[in-house]
């Protein structure tokens, strides 16, 4: 089974891109499955079910989405193996811009949209920096110049990434992405494989349910800002 991980900021068009991609792969129904890692709620299962695509959804809730991803990804792979998928796609929303749910050797795709502003690629961090393929959506409504500046800024952060422009509505561009998918690695398990980047670190009192503000309540791993002294 091939495993593909897709990440990107909320509403960047991940689900649309995956749906167009699956459509483009022209494989029999039920051979491609999707696991969606989301935070609180998700409505994407409706779109997947409408397209007859087997889908599982997990909500990280109060847990950091990356920690949630890494502690469930092997189970997701086993679900895919048991379902006899040829391809399993995971979709996860990066919220803190530090998310990087990518595994070494596993095809990693980052989806970002042109409307988010030309400097966004320079701010996203590991989610973009460690991706193999960067898919840019919503390019049909901004000027060519803005598309080019956007692509240039992606290259600044991730020189080796392949950039593909995909129109999530018409599917234009998904053909080239499908070509990449066919080259992805076949796996049976992720056991002993490694993440490309560490997950955000924090084990502090607030992680475990503390809600009161003030130094006396802050324990564990903290990071303090330094403000100018008057």
């Amino acid at each position, binding site marked *: 089974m091939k495993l593909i991980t897709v990440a990107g900021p909320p509403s960047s068009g991940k689900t649309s891109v995956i749906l167009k991609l699956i459509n483009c792969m022209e494989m029999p129904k039920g051979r491609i499955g999707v696991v969606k890692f989301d935070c609180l709620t998700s409505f994407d299962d409706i779109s997947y079910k409408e397209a007859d695509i087997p889908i599982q959804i997990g909500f990280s809730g109060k847990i950091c989405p990356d920690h949630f991803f890494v502690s469930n990804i092997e189970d997701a792979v086993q679900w895919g193996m048991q379902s006899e998928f040829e391809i399993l796609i995971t979709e996860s929303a990066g919220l803190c811009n530090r998310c990087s749910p990518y595994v070494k050797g596993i095809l990693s795709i980052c989806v970002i949209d042109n409307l988010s502003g030309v400097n966004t690629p320079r701010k996203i961090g590991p989610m973009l920096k460690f991706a193999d393929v960067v898919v*840019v959506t919503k390019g049909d409504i901004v000027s060519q110049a*803005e598309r080019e500046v956007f692509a240039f800024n992606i290259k600044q952060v991730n020189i080796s990434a392949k950039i593909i422009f995909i129109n999530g509505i018409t599917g*234009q561009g998904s053909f080239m992405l499908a*070509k990449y998918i066919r080259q992805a690695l076949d796996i049976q398990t992720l056991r002993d494989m490694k993440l490309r980047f560490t997950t955000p670190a924090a084990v502090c009192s607030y992680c475990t349910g503390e809600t009161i503000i003030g130094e006396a309540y802050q324990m564990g791993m903290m990071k303090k800002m330094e403000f100018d002294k008057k």
Partner: protein
Amino acid sequence: MKTHYFMELINHQTLEEIIKAYPITTDFLANYRLEDIPKNQLLHQALKEVEDEILEDFGLDQYDVIESLCVFLVSFTQAETAVNHVASITIKGGQNKLNEAENVELTIFTGDIISIVGPTGSGKSRLLNDIECLAQRDTPTNRLILVNGEEVDDINRFEMDGKLVAQLSQNMNFVMDLTVREFLEMHAKCRLTPNADEVVSKCFECANLLAGERFSEATKVTQLSGGQSRALMIADTAYMSDSPIVLIDEIENAGIDRRRALFLLAKREKIIFISTHDPLLALSANKRIVIKNGGIAKIIETTAEEKQSLEAIETFDNTLLTLRNSLRGGELITAELLRE
């Protein structure tokens, strides 16, 4: 070779000197929150004062930063890429939705203008998609697209990085909050051209020639009228875009000299496809591709008679333009104006 050159440069010249020679280094530093490190030292010396934590945030150590800058400079000083060498493309027919063979072969050179006509949903976007991904008999239409007369392997198709085709359509907007000048400068920076100022000025003047109403360099791009935006986008694509192929989707009448825009792009050695039903534009092309049932039904070479009618059409069009300008100027529309 180049890697070695930049490694030597980074090891022996201060950041100041590197930035002077390669201003884009400033961007690199900003990307890693290193914009404030001392510039009068060598990079590895300057990095000693940086807290490890900052670098760790990016998954780097000091050596990685040096190596990354080297790779960065190598990559951003490459003036030539695969897309710069496209002199012609050839479309070899596949089949339409009814599985009938297309039986066409069309080679298009830089400077050529080809129009595409056909009802909505007839398969125009499929043709444009095939061109964009350089179909190698592996898309639903089974078409083959050659570049400079040759087939293109997957590695080269990926190398194009979405740069093969520039697109212009009626739906496009500017979303950045910049002035015209800033906007063009920002785009020029990506081209890494040494004579950025000159190109920006040329591009600005050209946009004004195409637009019905003049605008200044200090105008915000988001405040331009529809016609002015289109004019700026076309001038920008002509002067700044690397892409050898331009796809134009229905530029409407809104205050822009459409034919002049087309010829400008052609003069800049672009291959131009224009999907349109505007007679003035469609007949300005040397050939037009007629799309039916998802396939190329035929290719019509613009006839002498059509070329002649172009003059009459242009007269109609000019009359309309005069009317528009009169309205804009607050004048009355008279029968006299219509006869002109």
